[in-house]
């Protein structure tokens, strides 16, 4: 897997490079500013870009903007955005084009190297990786809404993991149940939310977010 990395803090950039290489990824470029990132993304054609939201020279959301621009230029370019904080606004912007291959994680998630690299792989494969914090914010905000209120606690758990971008297999492993049980839960959830069932991981997340978005 060929990765372009953008992170302005040297220690973190260095750590991320080490970690990705330890897990067999090839780091094509590790850059520290927005313009460098845009250039690397245009020239190196990576399998996935791992990008910090806040980058120099503006120190605002330059990383996010560069990533979004690169995705407009090359639709479906997998982008995993890292940030010191998670903001639904940014998550929505990333998901907005509906092409998949996006992720938005707190920087803390690199603490669990395996899970983090798993998220990078998922995004590179066209799936999604949303930070549990984004999902739980969305779920808690909408918990008053009727359709969600009808979900059982177990179904809510499944939906939360589903929304993070995990496959049924992964959810089954995490909840220590069979994959068939998860399949049953997901079809129940879709039925309750009035959404057509789909096998596509990425479309599942979009469906969940689109529903939550309806306000």
């Amino acid at each position, binding site marked *: 897997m060929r990765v372009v990395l953008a992170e302005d803090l040297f220690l973190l950039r260095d750590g991320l490079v080490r970690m990705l290489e330890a897990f067999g990824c090839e780091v094509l470029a590790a850059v520290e500013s927005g313009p460098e990132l845009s250039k690397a993304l245009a020239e190196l054609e990576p399998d996935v870009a791992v990008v910090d939201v*806040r980058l120099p020279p503006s120190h*605002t959301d330059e990383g996010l903007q560069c990533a979004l621009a690169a995705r407009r230029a090359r639709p479906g370019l997998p982008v995993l955005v890292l940030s010191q904080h998670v903001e639904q606004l940014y998550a929505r912007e990333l998901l907005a084009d509906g092409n998949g291959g996006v992720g938005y994680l707190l920087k803390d998630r690199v603490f669990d190297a395996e899970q983090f690299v798993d998220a990078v792989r998922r995004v590179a494969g066209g799936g999604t990786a949303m930070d549990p914090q984004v999902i739980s914010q969305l779920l808690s*905000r909408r918990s008053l809404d009727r359709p969600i209120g009808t979900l059982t606690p177990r179904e809510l758990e499944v939906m939360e993991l589903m929304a993070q971008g995990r496959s049924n297999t992964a959810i089954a492993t995490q909840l220590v149940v069979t994959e068939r049980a998860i399949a049953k839960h997901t079809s129940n959830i879709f039925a309750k939310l009035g959404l057509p069932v789909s096998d596509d991981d990425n479309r599942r997340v979009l469906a969940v977010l689109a529903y939550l978005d309806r306000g």
Partner: protein
Amino acid sequence: MITRLRASLVAGGRGLVLALTALIGSVVLFTLTLVSVGLIPVGIGIFTTPPLLSLVRAHANRRRLLAAQWSDVRIPSAYRPAGAARGGLAGQVERCVGMLKDPATRRDVQWLFTDITAGAAVAVLAPALWLEGLFGLLLAAGLWKPVVEAGGTYWYTFLPVSGAGTAGLAAGLGTCWMVLATFVNPVLLRSHFRIAAASLTPGREELEQRIDRLTATRHDAVDTSAAELRRIERDLHDGAQARLVAMGMNLSTIEALVEKDPAQAKELIAAARASSAEALTELRDLVRGIHPPVLAERGLGDAVRALALRLPVPCEVDVEMTGRVEAPVESAAYFAVSEALTNAVKHGGGDRIWVDIAHRDDSLRVAVTDNGRGGASVGAGSGLSGVERRLGTFDGVLAVSSPAGGPTMVTMEIPCASS
């Protein structure tokens, strides 16, 4: 001497002009303004007053200009900027009330009155001295004959003119008048403008009030920022700092244990990781409380949008601004909106909230409206009075309209430039 004479003659001419404008322009404007204000209860006044007051302002500004040009007297002008012009009757009423509330309007009307009395009297003295002096000379030159023949003894100033002899005295007196005019005319003109300045200059009281307000808001600003620093220090000390120390301790224990007791070392590693995660969470919350990251990255509009997304009540955000305002204003506005939204959710009891943000005429205006039960007020101890104090530091104002039964509307306005 020649220059002095010329200056005096010019001053005489100018005095005549001033006296005429005062006795015609100011009298007409003064009467019309009184009538127009009197007609406000009937409704007509609402339409006639604003244009009339604008005319008065133009008149006063013309006088300010003349004061500066003719006598080098500077009369400060302090009209409040006209608000954004709304259309319709409501806009008209708003304009009318806005102008009437302006202390400068009271000063203008007061000036009109002094202008037609004291102002005109002083101004007219300058040409009068010359004319009276000239008339004295004319009397001596022979004018006394037809005048006395027509009406008997003629009183010139305080001299009874009844023959060639007294007419000669009148010429002497007239010369005195003209000599006097040569010296005092510029002074008279300047006095006229000084009288105008006395009415038109913003009062000391107003300045004192402003100083009081500035002192109070500065105290508030110092107090709140000191309290804020204390809170941050405490949070860091009790939270992240303590956790990092614990982590360091754990790590050194791990160092000792790693070979002897790998199982326990592993447990400690897990604990260390957990405390580093918690330290991060705490730091993140702390940062959000000081300066929310979205605000830093995207500015007020998107920061409020992000805030709205987290609310349990549907909230529409409408932003009308190009560029960003200064960071401190942005931050104050953000926390004010945040407080207003929290109040709306906690106490409003409505099921919809609207936020309107606009930057117009060098001021930032924000309105937070909910369709709840109303009854909110800016009283002691309420979160809104804290917001009011904070906005006060920027000369900003907060207004709450919340009749029982709702809706509640919190509006704030902060003067500031946009970049």
